């Protein structure tokens, strides 16, 4: 009888659980503690234009998740406009449309970004080279000369780009550069030159984030590709690399704003930084539809709340397993304490304890009368259920009359479980005496309280809800505990007389 398959199973569960947890932690940046603060940027784009008294269509490129920033939520405000989010070639944009509009128009788009510390560059598809670049008469020679010069002083696409930019910076501006700049805008000119030199490059738009800034404009950046890599280069200074506070708004080389049926359009940005508890930030994250991001957060809020409780039950089960296998505590009904603990979460501990003891005590008294009626078991337990409901109703009303609102939460107790507890305790009383009832009752309550403390711990709640991989780890631990052949804590006491040296 080989135990190898067992350990393989446990090992696999542990490995998958840890990988899933690590993935959530590193890739989705979900913190391990609920109290951690995370920086969140609130960015608002304001679109202004004059409508030409006719149908209007407005397209605004939207930012996507990127290293350093993760999109949490987005909202728009645009009275009377129809809105849809579109996705083309992996680039998202918002499209507003209206049949009839006149005069100055204002549209708003706001988004929240979580600051993450993603260092690695994400993959981006290089844009196709523009082959048919035509230059007018004097410019073609100027361009060729500038390219040749930069080419001679460089080794690869990135150094070539830097050399090219240097050629256009103020002090060293040559005659050729001045000529070209008189005709073209700098970023456009640079991409043309790069493309002509067979370097894949495009202009992307970024927003420099600074707390409290308003009416900011996007800046243009050169995205230069070589092989599988790309870098961002500042077309004004030639500096390489993305500044930490740069949010790429549009990264496909498309237009940021397109307005049809309007004129004088412009988009400006305002931004605000604030700190949020990490758990809130996590909750706001958009759920990607990938399998690896298999997360409860992709469910509607209501179901999420339900799962928050369901995912705690394995913790309660673990407490029961620990107390029974390692400690050897006796309880009335194996998992009854977990259900009682779930009720305690709703009622708070003290109210719950008092309520539980009241209901069970009164139930036992009534049950002792029922036992004299000589009823069939199912009928008797059903009668006990109704009795329990009656007790709970009476206590609720009484508590309310006395102004004890906490007493109302007594309704959260699982009534059928309570009835079975009363039934079992009553049998125990008749057969083994009150001592055994107290012993098992105490064991059950202790287990319930410990399970409650474990399940109500904010850290445990945060971990179980945000890291589904933990469930697999719990499973592996419970399987391992099911394999434990050592002594239970209480056995050390039970067998103590045997351990004495003769």
């Amino acid at each position: 009888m080989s135990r190898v398959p067992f350990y393989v199973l446990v090992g696999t569960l542990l490995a998958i659980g840890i990988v899933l947890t690590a993935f959530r932690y590193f890739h989705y940046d979900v913190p391990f503690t609920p109290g951690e603060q995370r920086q969140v940027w609130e960015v608002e784009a304001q679109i202004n234009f004059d409508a030409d008294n006719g149908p209007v269509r407005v397209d605004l490129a939207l930012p996507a998740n990127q290293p350093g920033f993760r999109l949490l939520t987005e909202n728009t405000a645009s009275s009377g406009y129809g809105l849809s989010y579109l996705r083309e070639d992996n680039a998202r944009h918002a499209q507003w449309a209206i049949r009839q509009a006149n005069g100055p128009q204002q549209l708003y788009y706001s988004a929240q970004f979580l600051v993450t510390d993603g260092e690695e560059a994400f993959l981006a598809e290089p844009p196709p080279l523009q082959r048919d670049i035509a230059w007018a008469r004097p410019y073609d020679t100027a361009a060729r000369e500038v390219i040749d010069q930069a080419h001679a002083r460089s080794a690869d696409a990135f150094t070539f780009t830097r050399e090219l930019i240097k050629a256009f910076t103020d002090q060293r501006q040559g005659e050729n550069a001045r000529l070209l700049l008189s005709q073209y805008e700098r970023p456009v000119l640079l991409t043309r030159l790069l493309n002509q030199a067979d370097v894949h490059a495009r202009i992307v738009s970024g927003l420099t984030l600074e707390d409290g800034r308003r009416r900011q404009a996007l800046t243009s950046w050169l995205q230069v590709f070589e092989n599988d890599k790309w870098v961002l280069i500042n077309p004004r200074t030639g500096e390489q690399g993305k500044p930490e506070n740069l949010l790429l708004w549009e990264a496909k080389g498309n237009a940021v704003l397109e307005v049809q049926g309007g004129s004088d359009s412009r988009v400006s940005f305002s931004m605000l930084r604030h700190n949020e508890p990490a758990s809130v930030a996590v909750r706001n994250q958009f759920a990607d539809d990938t399998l690896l991001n298999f997360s409860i957060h992709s469910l509607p809020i209501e179901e999420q709340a339900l799962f928050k409780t369901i995912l705690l039950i394995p913790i309660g089960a673990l407490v029961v397993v620990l107390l029974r296998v390692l400690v050897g505590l006796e309880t009335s009904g194996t998992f009854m304490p977990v259900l009682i603990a779930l009720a305690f979460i709703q009622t708070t501990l003290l109210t719950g304890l008092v309520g539980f003891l009241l209901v069970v005590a009164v139930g036992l008294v009534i049950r002792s009368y029922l036992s004299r009626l000589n009823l069939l078991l199912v009928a008797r337990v059903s009668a006990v259920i109704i009795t329990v409901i009656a007790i709970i109703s009476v206590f609720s009303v009484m508590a309310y009359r006395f102004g004890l609102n906490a007493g109302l939460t007594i309704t959260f107790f699982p009534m059928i479980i309570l009835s079975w507890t009363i039934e079992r305790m009553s049998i125990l009383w008749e057969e083994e005496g009150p001592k055994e009832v107290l012993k098992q009752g105490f064991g059950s309550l202790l287990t319930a309280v410990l399970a409650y403390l474990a399940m109500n711990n904010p850290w445990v709640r945060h971990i179980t809800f945000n890291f589904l991989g933990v469930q697999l780890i719990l499973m592996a631990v419970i399987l391992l505990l099911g394999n434990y052949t050592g002594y239970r804590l209480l056995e050390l006491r039970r067998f103590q007389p045997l351990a004495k040296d003769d």
Partner: protein
Amino acid sequence: MWATPAKLQAKGIIGMNRRNIRYIGRYNDRRLYPLVDDKLQTKLLAKRYGITTPDLIGTVTTQFGVKHVAEMVEAYPGFVIKPAKGSGGKGILVVERQQDGGYIKPSGTRIERQDLERHVSNILSGLYSLGGSPDVALIESLIAFDEVFAAYTYEGVPDIRVIVFRGYPVMAMMRLSTAASDGKANLHQGAVGVGLDITTGTALRGVQFNRPRDDHPDTGHGLASLQVPGWDALLHLAASCYEMTGLGYLGTDMVLDRHHGPMLLELNARPGLAIQMANGEGLRRRLDLIEKQPEPRSVEARVAFAQQHFARQGELAATA
């Protein structure tokens, strides 16, 4: 107050977890459990193997039949009603004699006919059975226990528990009911457990509430003089339960009847560990030795092996 795990380990004490995984899980095929969990099946099986059990007066299988219980027991002065699938002695009702339409329990308490019927009805509803499944009530004739034990018991019938491992009787004890245990033979309720020497069937050691005891708390009779008559026959009976059930780790509960000799009361596929307390010895060494033995051996050979290897001297003070 507390022992260290290392010390218990050194003494060969077996804990619940070890018992469950290492012995019950490994040697007791779950398929075979119904043979011992259902006392009716055990009884029928025992009959096939020529093992004596208390006489069956009848069974009650339907709530409709509950009304006929009184008629069934009319001819018998004393009887026992038990659930076929009960465990740990739960739901066993002993009636010593009948008196003016009522029933007298060993403690002298009188119960009425409707109490009797309610008890049977509860059994049928599954109140005492494992998992609460519907059950059958067995009515057996009362055991006329051997007079030699009269001085060692209070109200109840003293029974003998032998742990049989792979067919070898490994450890034995006698359970004596006391006033504290309310006539029940459960050690945790205050019955006296007396460890028995496997070789001779004499008392080794007595415990009540985990503390050593040299005499019976109610009768005051010294335990040192306790010896089970017909011990070899009893061991053979216990050992042959292995062939009967196929269960490798088995608790056999037996009684000595005045007329019929050793009788099988019930079998237990999950026997408790209190026997270690009564014997003042862990099971581990004995079980390890048995595990090293080759498989098929006759009942006689197994009993002889156990009697040869597990002999011990009593620790009791000889009080009269």
